[in-house]
């Protein structure tokens, strides 16, 4: 599984050749530098470590400075490992959006937007309790019964309730690559992608 690190820029839409209006997410992807090659013999598993996005040297720890110096590159902000990369790459190699072609289907991983403490309707898709008429009130977004009565006399573990929502790692599969602008390292992916503008995403092939 090959991949690249990107940054979500925003969304837009355009008319394609068939006259269909295509909504798409603009992602600034790469260029990523290979900063470490992990092998079965040395590390117990094989992976490729990619780094993306410039960072000031003064904001980089000495340890990381040394790590980036090994790959003969400048300090980077985001460092991610990709397991079982399809193409063989060496230390210091640069990976760009050329990895993908228009029409490819990719998976995108991102950190979804944090929603704070949410009830069960938003968090788990419950439909609430009761109607709005016949004297009912205050129950429209309630979770309903949590379980049976004296047997088992407790709420079973894993019962879905309200709580912190969003802000998790999310992967969206099979999104189409609609356009690639290699000169600006931009890739356009059909539909939406998890995360806020400016957040990092992984595009996997």
């Amino acid at each position: 599984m090959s991949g690249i690190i990107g940054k979500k820029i925003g969304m837009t839409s355009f008319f394609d050749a068939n006259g269909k209006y295509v909504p798409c997410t603009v992602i600034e992807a790469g260029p990523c530098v290979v900063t470490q090659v992990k092998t079965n013999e040395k590390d117990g598993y094989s992976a490729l470590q990619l780094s993306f996005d410039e960072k000031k040297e003064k904001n980089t720890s000495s340890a990381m400075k040394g790590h980036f110096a090994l790959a003969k590159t400048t300090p980077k902000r985001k460092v991610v490992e990709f397991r079982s990369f399809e193409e063989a790459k060496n230390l210091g190699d640069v990976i760009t959006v050329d990895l993908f072609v228009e029409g490819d289907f990719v998976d995108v991983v991102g950190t979804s937007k944090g929603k704070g403490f949410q009830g069960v309707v938003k968090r788990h898709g419950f439909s609430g309790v009761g109607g709005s008429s016949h004297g009912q009130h205050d129950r429209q977004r309630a979770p309903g019964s949590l379980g049976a009565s004296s047997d088992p006399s407790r709420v079973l573990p894993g019962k879905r309730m309200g709580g912190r929502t969003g802000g998790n790692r999310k992967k969206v599969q099979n999104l189409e690559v609609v356009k690639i602008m290699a000169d600006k390292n931009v890739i356009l992916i059909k539909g939406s992608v998890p995360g806020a503008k400016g957040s990092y995403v992984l595009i996997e092939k």
Partner: protein
Amino acid sequence: MSLLLDYVKKQLTPEVKHPKFKAGDTVTVHYKIKEGDKERIQQFSGVVIQRKNEKATASFTVRKISNGVGVERIFPVASPFIDKIETNKVGVVRRAKLFYLRARTGKSARIREKIQNNEEA
């Protein structure tokens, strides 16, 4: 808006060939409609009550009164289905969005027309 997003939107915008028009103008939009494999052109004319967004996502809303019922239609400027746009009247308005027209009918819903001679001089 981010500069990069701005650039991308510019790249996605087809070259515009439509005449200039703004909110308050009366326009006729010739819109291509596909029926099976036949294509015909439908006209929709009315007052432009807003122009929204820019570049690839730009659109405009045309309002007309049809059989006493207000009808509004939103067209994307970049739509390949717009055959042409004719400007029939240039209106004088003080606002960019003319939503107040929705609450008005008849005489009070009229828009003063700009005198064309001034433009030529």
